[in-house]
């Protein structure tokens, strides 16, 4: 049972977002890059648990990124995983990322591909579904639980106002979110071992982007908060009704 975990790097969650070049580029100056939390805490850790339980024979990690993505993939290897693959290109177009991973994964015959539910930077949440389509695999999105037995996965996924439990035959792509596993911290042995684990750099297939980000914008700054005294909750309710018109 071979598992592939898709890893992307993302700015640390405390990052103050700023743009440069006339609002066309994300300003990475002073920004710490981390493993996208959904990829790390849920997808990767669940894959490692499946290997530790003897269900999976190998766990490979893959990322689409330039050389600056290597510290993050090494950090992921410190948590676990047998080897990593970096596809040497970068794109904000989710199709390019999915198609590049699909081109690599097509020859490797993975039984299970895990990714986070979305990246915390571009928030598309579509890469996993695209990958499943391109590899002609099943897809369960926004999963909170995953177990495997006899080439069939039992997956709980979020639905409107609740959850659904599905039986999905492998091969399968699953996008993971909270509930799937508990976050881990890499230990010293893992960090040392990660230094010598194979990190394969693969040339990109040169897939053309279907979309591009042309510019960015920051949300309007609130003009000032209107305060109410704790004794004046009628005043607040009145403002919510007649001014904000939300109740």
């Amino acid at each position: 049972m071979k598992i592939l975990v898709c890893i992307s790097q993302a700015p640390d969650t405390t990052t103050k977002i700023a743009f440069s070049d006339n609002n066309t580029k994300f300003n990475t100056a002073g920004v710490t890059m981390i493993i996208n939390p959904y990829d790390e805490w849920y997808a990767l850790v669940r894959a490692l648990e499946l290997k530790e339980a003897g269900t999976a024979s190998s766990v490979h990690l893959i990322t689409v990124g330039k050389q600056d993505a290597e510290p993050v993939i090494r950090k992921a290897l410190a948590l676990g995983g047998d080897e990593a693959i970096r596809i040497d290109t970068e794109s904000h177009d989710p199709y390019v990322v999915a198609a590049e991973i699909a081109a690599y994964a097509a020859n490797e015959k993975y039984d299970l591909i895990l990714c986070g539910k979305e990246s915390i930077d571009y928030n598309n949440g579509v890469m996993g579904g695209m990958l499943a389509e391109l590899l002609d695999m099943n897809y369960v999105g926004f999963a909170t639980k995953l177990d495997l037995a006899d080439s069939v996965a039992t997956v709980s996924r979020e639905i409107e106002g609740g959850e659904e439990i599905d039986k999905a035959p492998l091969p399968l792509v699953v996008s993971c979110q909270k509930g799937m596993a508990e976050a881990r911290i890499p230990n010293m042995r893992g960090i040392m071992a990660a230094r010598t684990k194979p990190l394969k750099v693969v040339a990109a297939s040169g897939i053309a982007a279907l979309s591009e980000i042309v510019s960015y914008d920051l949300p309007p700054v609130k003009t000032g908060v209107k305060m109410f005294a704790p004794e004046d909750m009628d005043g607040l309710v009145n403002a919510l009704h007649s001014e904000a018109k939300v109740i």
Partner: protein
Amino acid sequence: MSVIVLAEHTQGSFKKKTFEAIQYANHIAGQLNTTTTAVVLGTVDAANLEQLGAYGAQKVLHVADSKLDNLSARAYAKALASAAEKEGAKVIVALHDVTGKAVAPRLSARLKAGIVAGAVSYPDLSTGFKVKKGVFAGKAFAFVNINTEVKVITLMPNTFAVQKGEGVANVEELSVSFDNKDFSIQVQEVNKVTGTVPLAEAELVVSGGRGMKGPENWPALEALADALGAALACSRPVADSHWRPHHEHVGQTGGTIRPNLYIAVGISGAIQHLAGVNGSKTIVVINKDPEAPFFKAADYGVIGDALEILPRLTTAVKKFKEAQH
């Protein structure tokens, strides 16, 4: 040429967000000088289908196969691709919700049609096909240009106000041939949380943080939520301390919501929390610390102890609701 829109339903009835998606699609159809076709998958009554005309669908393509009553991303993508081909669709709209996010990416990859996931604007056609969407978990927006002839958009629910108009849609049945593979995922069990407003689609949300001091104080928050008809949410420390279930956690690593009203009680407003909620139209912050960063992002604020203010606010809301009747 046309604009098609996936009209989601729950056991045969349509929700407001579906009407919003249809209205959005019809606005784009207007920009492109074409018509709107709503695609309905699974069992729905004819009368219900016709009413989609009131939100801008001139035509409804109905794939009545009861196997589609449950979501199958493969089958839904296939049916939409078939409808798109039949209608010569240039734009395909779905919602940025659990169904849309399962189906739209498959469809986008299948048709090699560029996608904007989580759109919050109509397309700007002056320089291509440019759509605004939230990025960095709500801390910023990106303008994404789609380069392909066919475009896929998932619309962030609760972006536009829905207005019911006149009109009855022309309903046409569409038959799509599926194979076993399209239904190879079997639904074993469905567990719905009943009696509460689902957070993702709630228009009013009441949310608690560490300032609530402990899970034993939540009834005061629930009383306010009940009085308003609001859904409950919480900050990450609250979920991590198991005071509240994880599905109530909103913020950068939890759910992202954009209700009309977000009342934050005892939440200081860390940047990660703000990211998940700053799409809310009106924000009320109740906090005992006047320096809490959340006040800077708020429309209305009250400085004071959460547990003292909550009952007062609940009483004021009840009084207001009674006066409305």
